[in-house]
């Protein structure tokens, strides 16, 4: 015997979406304006100077973060992007990723702190994160498209939602992973919870939080292509175009540019996470012995 029933979940979602649009139209318009302004100014900043100037800046950042090897690799990689004529597209995607990432971090780190501070909050937030992370990313695009119209903004919104989860999870993990005794020591000497968060928990969780931010950036980059489907342009637009035209060559060139961007961002953010960890525990004993002998 077959069960014959149909839950009109989709209808409900449609109705809910219509209601949202009608009620919060002004809010959406505002968000759209802000994101668009942020994206446009960043894109202007990246595409207006000659490409060699931007490449020098990137190489300098790489040198500061990691050293001359990464600087050299960065310069070569971005020259390759210029060589395959994807520079402007790459800079558009780069601007999109930066805007989305900054917003995602601003949302996810406080959420992670909240989740770390209360078991209830954690229990509520966790399934929402699961939902955000596993729901096929393109599904976000549909309501985002309705709310923010075709263009770069729905791409940014979908990217934020998709990439936020690791930021929240790593922040919670990092704060929960801080040595309980050290936090206790903070309380024992009469610190307030806020001061313990600022002076003990966040600094000590920073390597883990940075690893989360690194993941946020990586996920944001992987969304670039999908954002291209809603008219966000950039490298994603090129990939979508090459798909429509069955142009393997163009697809490869655009894809390679994404990879180069990804490697650059990953290496730079990963090393920021490492340098924020002071001393390092492993070699510490040896160090202490050495200085004892020297004394």
């Amino acid at each position, binding site marked *: 015997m077959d069960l014959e029933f149909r839950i009109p979940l989709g209808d409900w979602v449609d109705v809910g979406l219509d209601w949202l649009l009608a009620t919060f139209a002004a809010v959406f318009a505002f968000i759209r304006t802000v994101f668009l302004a942020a994206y446009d100014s960043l894109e202007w900043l990246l595409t207006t100077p000659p490409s060699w100037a931007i490449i020098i800046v990137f190489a300098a950042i790489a040198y500061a973060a990691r050293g001359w090897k990464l600087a050299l690799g960065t310069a070569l990689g971005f020259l390759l992007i210029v060589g395959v004529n994807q520079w402007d597209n790459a800079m558009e995607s780069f601007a999109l990723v930066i805007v989305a990432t900054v917003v995602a971090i601003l949302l996810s780190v406080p959420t992670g702190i909240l989740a770390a501070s209360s078991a209830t909050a954690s229990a509520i937030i966790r399934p929402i994160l699961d939902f955000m992370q596993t729901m096929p990313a393109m599904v976000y695009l549909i309501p985002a498209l309705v709310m923010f119209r075709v263009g770069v903004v729905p791409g940014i919104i979908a990217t934020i939602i998709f990439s936020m989860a690791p930021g929240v999870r790593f922040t919670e993990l990092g704060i929960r992973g801080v*040595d309980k*005794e*050290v936090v206790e020591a903070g*309380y024992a000497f*009469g610190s307030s919870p806020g001061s313990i968060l600022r002076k003990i928990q966040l600094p000590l969780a920073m390597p883990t939080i940075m690893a989360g931010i690194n993941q946020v950036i990586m996920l944001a980059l992987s969304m670039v292509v999908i954002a291209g489907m809603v008219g966000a342009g950039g490298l994603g637009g090129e990939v979508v175009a090459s798909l429509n035209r069955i142009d393997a060559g163009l697809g490869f060139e655009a894809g390679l540019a994404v990879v180069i961007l990804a490697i650059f961002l990953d290496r730079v953010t990963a090393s920021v996470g490492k340098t924020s960890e*002071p*001393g390092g525990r492993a070699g*510490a004993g040896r160090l*202490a012995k050495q200085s004892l002998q020297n004394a």
Partner: protein
Amino acid sequence: MNEQIALSVQNVYKVFGKRPAEAVKRMKAGKTRDEVSALGTAAVIDASFDVRAGEIFVVMGLSGSGKSTLIRTLNGLQPQTAGNVVVGGTDISTISDAELRKVRQQKISMVFQHFALMPHRTVADNAAYALEVQGMAKAERLARAEKVLKLVGLEGWGDKFPAELSGGMQQRVGLARALCAETDILLMDEAFSALDPLIRREMQEQLVALQADLGKTIVFITHDLNEAMFLGDRIAVMRDGRIVQIGTPDDILTHPANDYVAQFVQDVDRTRVLTAGSVMEPARAVVNLSGGPRNALRTMRDLQTSAAFVVDQRRTFFGTVRDRDVMHLVESRAPDLAAAVRNGNGAVRAETPLSELFGLAVESPIPLPVVDDEGRLVGAIPRVTLLAALGNVPSSTTDIPIVESAPAPIPEQEVTRTLNKTSMGIKTSAEGGTR
């Protein structure tokens, strides 16, 4: 006693779990810890004690006995379920969070088992943390921290990070941080348990020295009985959340309240806790210097011993005499016992720990004489007593004629013959000489 109470714990309960208040209610009505286990886990049950200003109060128990929870109720890190904790006159169970923070800043600081230093801050910044919380300006607090670091033997290490220091040094930073707060009360939660035995010993000695200088009130948690005995002015023994005995180290060792405590103290290194004064027995073979050789020889014969302690009228200890030497004196009719006295500085003081007596006991064929501060003979320790003290055998040896077989006494008849032979020549009023 009119000593000041620094910290008072009154009927404190701490129960973790779903319905802690109900669990406390039932335990007060006589239920056991196991019977209320469905309602919650009782970590501390009906703990009451007062800590006097300036003493080291040790709470000792195995892991899971509730001692770490108990110490955390003292500064509100684990608020108690029932009962009162009074810190320097303030009942911290009734005050607001802000007031509790003030109490923690000004009255009570803490040293942690695994140091709990902030790895992202330098040693000096760690030491100055309490002052930073109190809102002191940077230059001032760092200057203070430097002073305290010097006090704990870490001068010049202020710019290092904790990870660059060894375990013992890290705990010194932990101690410096607590001392920097200048609170009267110091809580130490298994503070030395994570350290190597040698370092631990050193830290214990340093703590005792610091305590003597600074006069802090210290509540010290440990599972190590030897540590408890070494540090504690008084010790509370905990078991399954309850305090089973509170007493001085000597009390706990010699009068355990129950089998559990007795079993616990079995493993203690008694030689470091017990002192010569606490195990010594009345010195029986004592002769007066002014009594002369004949009198001394007679005493030794009567007690069947081969040696005796020599004292003067005020019982000041002079040394020992051996029967053979004295007999020579008697045979040669010498009037002065002093010629036979030897070993004048072989006496031990009453407060010497047993551990330092073994070497002396091995070398000395006779019981070790014990003297007080003024050099007066107060007792003696035969080797048997030393051994009995180790095994905590009740000191029934007192009634046994002192066993000191090492050099066998001269046969009685021979002594008597000598005394008789020489008796006509000398008529001294020696009777008062023996005691």
